[in-house]
């Protein structure tokens, strides 16, 4: 019987190429009409150790990673040993005959006879493809797309190896793991959270990105660097995170939509710059991709433990917004929103993601680029200039004019006769430093007033499931899918379950969700941290005390199974 869903783990040492095999397989699955969600687990090293690339694939949508594997493809003997306990009863571990391993669930492949050295991974792909019933055309096409241009000399051998491994597998094991047939629908994208954030930034008109490498945030900057020349943007690797954020504020002051990307420890060094952006009222988007702390912690694992840290980062008081996407689509769209909100509120806006989502390749419908408007500070500059009409250019331009909304018309330096003065000290309306305490008070109020705009645009939390619910799961960011799947499985058992997911975690608008909390039988927060940060924030904002928490803080993503176990406790 064909399988609707398969959970496939590819495991091996860093450097063995398991990501290459995994990505090829991912592409084949999506091309052949299946849905997909990838979970990557890797160590903070370049060679050796034990890494995993898990593909959960289905003819239906795949909301979350899951426990228990149907197939374990071991690129090294350790993988077989480590993941044997996680194998489903009917599962299979594909190993290399050469290792001489034996056991009930092991299936040995004579790789040596199928491929030579550098083509081993191609053989693996052939084996897996055949096992799960993908056709050779889709496999070959994927190989060609990946290596055709880069290594044309290896094309023939690659194809040969693939076909050989494929054929061998079909002959020796044709049963058990075939995926149910699917019709390839309209084109789907395959991309991970960081890809989608990068694409969102590009669509939103990002023109400047400064960064200092830090896992799991680096790939955002690398994505942009890769397209910098053709799309017309500047990506600068800074000497440290302090330089990165100050460069970005400098570029933003001058008129470029700007982005910084980092993780917890690097963000620490940006905290002063965040406060600077707030004081200068400069738009700035900061993507903070979480990993477990404190300090260096687990640099390649996932966590949701920096919500409060980001929310209260920066000395002094100023408004901000924090988006916490839970899907690839949200990664894209929240990023676009972040750029607009930063521009409109003239201040810092955050995208808070995590390693799991950042590395999780998924299939998604192409983004409707035509519907996205890019921010363009120069347009606003022109509009503001026009509004000023024949204002005397020798009268100092009031960059920080006190307005009812708290938002002042923003000109850009060098683009008109008006001089743009910005100062990190408290300042008068014209931007010059002041120690007039009455002005200081008004400026504090002006900056905080901008919260109104931010509040008027809050993305409400998404609700899924039964309303009212006996059990309401509440979460944010990357846990969305796991909550929904856990919820569904309880609903299948007859319970009334709802899921409330925040893809914007600050500010909170109680009127958007409080009644759901109050009307639910039992409310449980599901978070990737050890203290229940969203739960605490909800209490701070509404007084509502969430009944219980399911928390994960071992560096792994929440799974439906983990949530269900947690609910039973």
């Amino acid at each position, binding site marked *: 019987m064909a399988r609707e869903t398969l959970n496939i783990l590819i495991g091996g040492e860093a450097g063995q190429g398991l990501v290459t095999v995994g990505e090829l397989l991912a592409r084949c699955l999506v091309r052949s009409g299946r849905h997909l969600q990838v979970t990557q687990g890797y160590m903070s090293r370049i060679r050796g150790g034990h890494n995993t690339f898990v593909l959960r694939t289905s003819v239906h949508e795949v909301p979350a990673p899951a426990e228990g594997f149907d197939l374990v493809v071991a690129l090294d003997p350790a993988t077989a040993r480590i993941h044997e306990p996680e194998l489903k009863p009917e599962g299979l571990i594909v190993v290399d005959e050469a290792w001489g391993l034996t056991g009930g669930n092991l299936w040995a492949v004579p790789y040596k006879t199928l491929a030579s050295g550098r083509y081993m991974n191609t053989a693996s792909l052939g084996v897996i493809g055949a096992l799960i019933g993908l056709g050779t055309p889709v496999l070959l096409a994927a190989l060609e797309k990946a290596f055709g241009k880069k290594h044309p000399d290896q094309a023939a051998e690659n194809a040969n190896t693939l076909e050989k491994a494929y054929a061998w597998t079909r002959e020796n094991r044709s049963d058990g793991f075939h995926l149910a047939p699917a019709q390839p629908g309209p084109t789907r994208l395959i991309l991970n959270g960081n890809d989608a954030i990068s694409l969102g930034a590009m669509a939103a008109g990002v023109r400047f990105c400064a960064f200092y490498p830090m896992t799991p945030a680096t790939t955002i900057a690398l994505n942009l660097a890769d397209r910098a020349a053709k799309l017309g943007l500047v990506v600068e690797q800074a000497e440290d995170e302090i330089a990165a954020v100050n460069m970005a504020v400098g570029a933003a*002051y001058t008129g470029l939509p700007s982005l910084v990307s980092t993780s917890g420890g690097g963000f620490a060094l940006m905290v002063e710059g965040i406060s600077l952006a707030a004081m200068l009222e400069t738009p700035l988007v900061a993507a903070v991709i979480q990993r477990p702390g404190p300090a260096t912690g687990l640099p390649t694992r996932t966590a949701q433990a920096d919500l409060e840290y980001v929310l209260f980062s920066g000395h002094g008081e100023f408004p901000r917004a924090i988006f916490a996407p839970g899907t690839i689509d949200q990664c894209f769209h929240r990023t676009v929103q972040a750029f607009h909100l930063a521009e409109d509120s003239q201040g810092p806006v955050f995208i808070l993601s995590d390693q799991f989502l950042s590395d999780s390749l998924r299939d998604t419908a192409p983004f409707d680029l035509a519907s996205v408007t890019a921010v363009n500070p120069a347009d606003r500059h022109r509009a503001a200039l026009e509004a000023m009409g024949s204002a005397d250019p020798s009268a100092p331009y009031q960059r920080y004019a006190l307005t009812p909304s708290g938002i002042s018309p923003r000109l850009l*330096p060098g683009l008109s006769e008006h001089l743009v003065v910005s100062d990190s000290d408290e300042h008068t309306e014209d931007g010059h430093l002041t120690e007039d305490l009455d002005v200081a008070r008004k400026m504090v109020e002006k900056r905080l007033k901008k919260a109104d705009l931010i509040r008027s645009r809050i993305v409400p939390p998404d609700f899924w499931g039964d309303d009212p619910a006996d059990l309401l799961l509440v979460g944010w960011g990357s846990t969305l899918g796991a909550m929904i799947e856990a919820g569904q499985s309880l609903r299948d058992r007859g319970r009334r379950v709802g899921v409330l997911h925040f893809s914007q975690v600050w500010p909170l608008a109680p009127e958007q969700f409080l009644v759901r909390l109050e009307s639910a039988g039992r409310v449980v927060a599901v978070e990737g941290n050890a203290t229940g940060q969203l739960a605490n924030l909800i209490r701070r904002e509404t007084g509502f005390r969430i009944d219980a928490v399911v928390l994960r803080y071992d560096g792994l993503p929440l799974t439906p199974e983990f949530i269900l176990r947690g609910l039973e406790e």
Partner: protein
Amino acid sequence: MVDIKEYGQFETAWCPGCGNHQIIQAVKRALAEEGLRPRQVLMVSGIGQAAKSPHYLRANVFNGLHGRALPAATGARLANPGLKVLIESGDGCSYGEGGNHFLAGIRRNIDVTYIVHDNQIYGLTKGQASPTTEFGFVTKAQPQGVFNTPFNPVAAAVGLRCGFVARGFSGDVDHLAGLIRAGMAHRGFALIDVLQPCVSFNKVNTFAWYKKRVQPLGPEYDPADWAVALQTAHEWGDRIPLGVIYRDETRVPLEDRIPALASGSLIGRPVNQTVLAEIMREYE
């Protein structure tokens, strides 16, 4: 040449007798003489007494964080290479808190003119030692005197092959204005370390102390000779050489290397939808 009056006249928060007064004068003169109008100029600074300078002339101003003027200036320059970007900040700001950016900025060779008001002290915070404070100098924070070897910024910059390295003195406005003009004319990172008496906290390196020692380099001096420049840069004693100590016009500024900037400032450039769609298709 632009009328210096365009740059205005302002009351300052500096002590009477402070060298800062002359430096700002020299800056204004240099800007006017270069024919720059205030709208073309962006003055960037950090925090400190020197860092208040941009408030005392008419220009675009980015007065950022202590120690972080250079990265902000870098971002601004990369955003709009049409702006003439000058940095004015103190020795503490530039070589202390901002030391890492100083190293990186020289390597990056961004086209900014960096004028350091070097009073060899933390002025605004009331007189602690800065990186350039002399060995043995006693302050409330260093009651046994400074233990550290002083930082010679000019020597460090020449060592790093910074394309333009000069030393000025606030007491000689004409000479200083000339250095600033030369620094602005240089395409790339230009450092001008300006010896500046602080009458309130530096009672050692006073106006008289500097006056006795500073000695402008003569026309025979060739700033293109790196080995000589290195030697000259390390001179600091009874004679302190002033002038352009090292100049290398062959270094290409960062702005010229970045493909996206080949057609000028990115400000207001619309997103190329075709390219964007292409990029998205890479993920199919």
